[in-house]
């Protein structure tokens, strides 16, 4: 046996020490992430409900929930809503964040202060963000409505209107999360070396060309990672919808996450809700893996 592997030796002592440091975390993580995930999966194979837990905890037809999901119009509609909301919101966030980052990239104190001030929407507790926009969308107390009224365009409540409800939420979501893109693009802008820019300037490139050909190349990977990150995060959106529209009017703003919430905590169809959650989890897992691949291998165009 190699000396290094001899029990009681320093190498062994060290390995044991590290294992002891790691063990509690692994145990806890196993317990609070893998076990619940497994339980979720198991529950998704049963028609478990609150009304009769003992009887409904059976596995005679494990795929019953999943089959039902395929036919569930409300579920499919929720996915469409989720995609609409995520796509529009993430796109707006990226554009706004990018634009602000470009505007604020400079050395003055005003810009530095602005960069910190613009972080506020992102760091507010999500419930406070929901609150702010609830106020803004409640005609009685909303300055928005009053301004529009004063300008001669009286509008009814945006969140009570099925046509505009989703856009109203998208606007609030964009407001909340544009600083994320802004932060990351700003960080990326810091890493662009001066030489290519100066060389291009000497060659006579104007600002738009500078941006299109040089800056964009450097920040494109960041934008992609940003977009993916925000996309995955957007699936978790809850406080905004809960507070602003509660999924309505009708089901117009009911995203998949919310639908699962209703199934679990309004109707108490645990089994079915677990199936919904499992599908979401699978999607998140895949997208996270994608992010991990991009973030780890393609970090920057150097």
């Amino acid at each position, binding site marked *: 046996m*190699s*000396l*290094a592997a*001899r029990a*009681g*030796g*320093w*190498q*062994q*002592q060290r390995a044991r020490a590290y294992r002891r440091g790691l063990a509690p975390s692994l145990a806890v993580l196993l317990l609070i992430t893998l076990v619940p995930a497994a339980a979720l999966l198991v529950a998704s194979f049963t028609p478990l409900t609150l009304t009769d837990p003992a009887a409904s905890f059976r596995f005679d037809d494990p795929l019953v929930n999943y089959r039902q999901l395929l036919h569930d119009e409300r579920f499919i509609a929720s996915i469409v809503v989720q995609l609409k909301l995520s796509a529009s919101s993430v796109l707006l966030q990226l554009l706004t964040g990018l634009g602000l980052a470009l505007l604020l990239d400079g050395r003055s104190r005003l810009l530095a202060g602005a960069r910190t001030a613009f972080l506020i929407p992102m760091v507010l507790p999500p419930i406070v963000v929901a609150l702010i926009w609830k106020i803004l969308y409640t005609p009685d107390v909303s300055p928005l409505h009053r301004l529009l009224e004063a300008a001669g365009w009286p509008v009814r409540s945006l969140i009570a209107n099925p046509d505009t409800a989703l856009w109203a939420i998208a606007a609030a979501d964009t407001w909340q999360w544009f600083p994320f893109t802004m932060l990351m693009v700003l960080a990326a802008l810091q890493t662009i070396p001066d030489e290519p820019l100066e060389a291009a300037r000497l060659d006579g490139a104007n600002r738009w060309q500078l941006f299109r050909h040089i800056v964009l190349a450097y920040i494109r990977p960041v934008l992609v990672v940003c977009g993916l990150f925000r996309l995955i995060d957007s699936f978790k959106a809850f406080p905004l919808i809960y507070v602003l529209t509660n999924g309505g009017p009708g089901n117009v703003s009911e995203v998949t996450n919310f639908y699962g919430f209703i199934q679990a905590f309004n109707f108490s169809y645990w089994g079915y809700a677990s199936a919904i959650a499992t599908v979401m989890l699978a999607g998140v897992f895949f997208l996270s893996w994608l992010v991990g691949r991009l973030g780890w291998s393609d970090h920057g165009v150097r």
Partner: protein
Amino acid sequence: MASITLRKLHKTFDGTPIIRGVDIDIRDGEFVALVGPSGCGKSTLLRLIAGLETPDQGEISLGRHRIDDVAPRDRDVAMVFQNYALYPHMTVADNLGFGLKLRGTPRADIDRRVREAADILGLGELLQRHPRALSGGQRQRVAMGRAIVRQPQAFLFDEPLSNLDAKLRVQMRTEIRALHQRLATTTVYVTHDQVEAMTMADRIVVLKDGKVEQQGAPLELYDRPRNAFVAGFIGSPAMNLIPGRLQRDERGGGSHVLTDDGLRLPAPLLAGNAATHGTRVLYGTRPEHFSLDAARGSSAEVIVVEPTGSETHVALRLAGQQVIAAFRERVSLRPGDRVPLWPQAAQAHLFDAAGGHRLG
């Protein structure tokens, strides 16, 4: 008894063998330098002695105890790192006393011993400072102080002077040597600078590719290198090695080396049949063993002249290659001059061209 013994040591990292069978004996109180080119494994050997790595095979002993895989803290050795590794968040005094504090030494003793070490190294004024407020040389001394305070059985130095400027390096060399004479603690000193090894060590171990090429007193390695590698490594400027063929003289019982250029160089007397006629050899002669001999010298063209003050180093073209000669006396030579250069036969070395080992 603080002797250190390394027996048949092997160590592999990620599938690459770094130490490939090393045997070294270090006597109590000796100052031994481990030298070699980068990658030869000298730092790894030091880390094995310190306990920061564990050997795959072999034995390490300190005094009478086997310490192959004993934890570093139980080995009673102290190490001075190349980048000093001072604790940034502690004062110099705390840095010095850290080891003693860990062993539960009473406060009063710690203070006394810290003060003693500080006095020896001239750190008295700096005890309350933090490492970031010290110069490179001061940090070096604190690193040494940390080792001294513990009064270990052996000091281990890992290229401690390589981060200092040249002048400071020379000064610290003397100080380290003086320290060793004062404390007489067994010292293992790793360096890539053979001048440091030559001036400081009682014995030198030359390493290459994880193996010991030669170990012995500095002058022993200088005068009788065991192979071409050691010959070329020890001594600055390096020994000149000229390829040729060993041949017996037509008259008399001596031999000479015929270079590819047709030049006949005087060979030293070889005992017995140390080498046969016709063997391809490397003819080694140190720069200071060239002389200007109008009678026997062969014409060499001066390429570069480097006066260093005490000596003059001259690069010349001889026997189809560049050689370096070192003259004590002032010579007035200019590039392009032709001079009669002659190596002293008695001081020449012969090495087998194929295997590199010494002949005779």
